[in-house]
């Protein structure tokens, strides 16, 4: 009987799980957690780049969600609501770390000096070589300012649309589009820098080898 109940709970549709969770059903909470923990954790992990801290933030985001679940009326998509909570939890943590009291808008509008893309039309770089090394891309994403990172992860990694991101981050759709573009432009610069560094190292190694042969 208990086993049958457990199987039922693991297949519970989201809407039903939410309804039951609003009545304090433990299995429904677990079901909601199972449905969304990967996305929330992955978002936190990309934002902070540290597994222990990402787990801590995931727990905090779900805790806030479950504390407020009785107020959820279904006007917005549940996952959007949860992601909004998660992003706010992450941004609060980042603000505490940097000691600034910046608003979400400021976080999504980094100036060029603090990591925005440059418009350097005279740059000699053309296209990035053949394919993008995943490790390099991951490293480049880690270097993005928080606002760019959030939008890039939500759109290009998790597949949210701009209207959903605008809901999650509390910004306009235009702002979401513009920040995403700036994030990609900044990533391109960072990846080009990595390629240049690598080429320089290879040249130096070649020179050393050539000198050693003489």
């Amino acid at each position, binding site marked *: 009987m208990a086993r049958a*109940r457990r199987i039922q709970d693991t297949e519970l549709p989201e809407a039903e799980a939410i309804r039951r969770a609003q009545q304090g059903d433990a299995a429904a909470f677990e079901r909601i957690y199972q449905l969304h923990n990967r996305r929330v954790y992955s978002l936190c992990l990309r934002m902070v780049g540290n597994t222990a801290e990402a787990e801590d933030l995931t727990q905090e985001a779900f805790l806030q969600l479950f504390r407020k679940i009785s107020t959820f009326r279904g006007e917005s998509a549940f996952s959007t609501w949860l992601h909004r909570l998660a992003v706010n939890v992450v941004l609060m943590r980042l603000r505490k770390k940097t000691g600034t009291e910046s608003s979400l808008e400021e976080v999504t509008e980094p100036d060029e000096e603090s990591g925005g893309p440059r418009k350097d*039309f005279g740059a000699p770089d053309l296209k990035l070589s053949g*394919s993008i090394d995943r490790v390099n891309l991951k490293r480049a*994403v880690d270097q993005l300012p928080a606002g760019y990172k959030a939008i890039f992860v939500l759109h290009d990694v998790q597949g949210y649309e701009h209207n959903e991101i605008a809901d999650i981050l509390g910004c306009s759709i235009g702002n979401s589009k513009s920040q995403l573009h700036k994030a*990609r432009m900044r990533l391109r610069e960072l990846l080009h820098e990595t390629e240049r560094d690598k080429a320089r190292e290879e040249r130096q190694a070649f020179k050393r080898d050539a000198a050693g042969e003489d």
Partner: protein
Amino acid sequence: MGMTRCEEFWNRSEAWMENERHPEDSDHFAACPRCRALIADLEMIRKAAPLALPETEPSARVWSSLRAQLEKEGLIRAQGSKWWQNLLPTGVFRPALAGAYLGLVIIASVTFGWRNHSKELALIHDAWLDRAQNAMAPLQAQLNSAEAKLVPAAQTQNSDVTATLNRNLAIVDNMISMCEKSVRDDPQNEITRDYLYTAYQQKADLLATMAQSGAEGR
């Protein structure tokens, strides 16, 4: 000085990426290798992102501590009783398993508690390792003692259930010995320690199930 065609294209590249293309840009795009390279790179970044940053799952401890917190705050009502409360009918086994459960709680607090205080981490790290190592030993003894009492009693019940439980116990024991070896080989590694803790927890759960099935069979 006015903007060059490339500058104009770059300024509108955001719209281009959203498939909102300015009629004047198409000719320039076809003729300009620099602007084609820009768009090709941005497309490549967009396609590479989900592959470079795949979704991953948090460790099981996130849900365990979340659930504990929800219960503490009274936000959830548990279905049935907690596993260790199921031991109540089998009073004779209760002290040993309750001790093991307490041991798990101590290890969990010692093992995971320090992570939440990164500033103090450097100071307490060595002390933490000593305490965690010391805390594991009595726990294993308590679990072994509970097992010694429970397994013979469980064998008097339904033979199929007993066989399944014994098989699972052997699997968990095997896992514990592998994890213990990993912890001995690399005592500083948190992940192996997490696995060992989880294996102990599984054994405690299994013994609790045995105790419960023993009680129901009587």
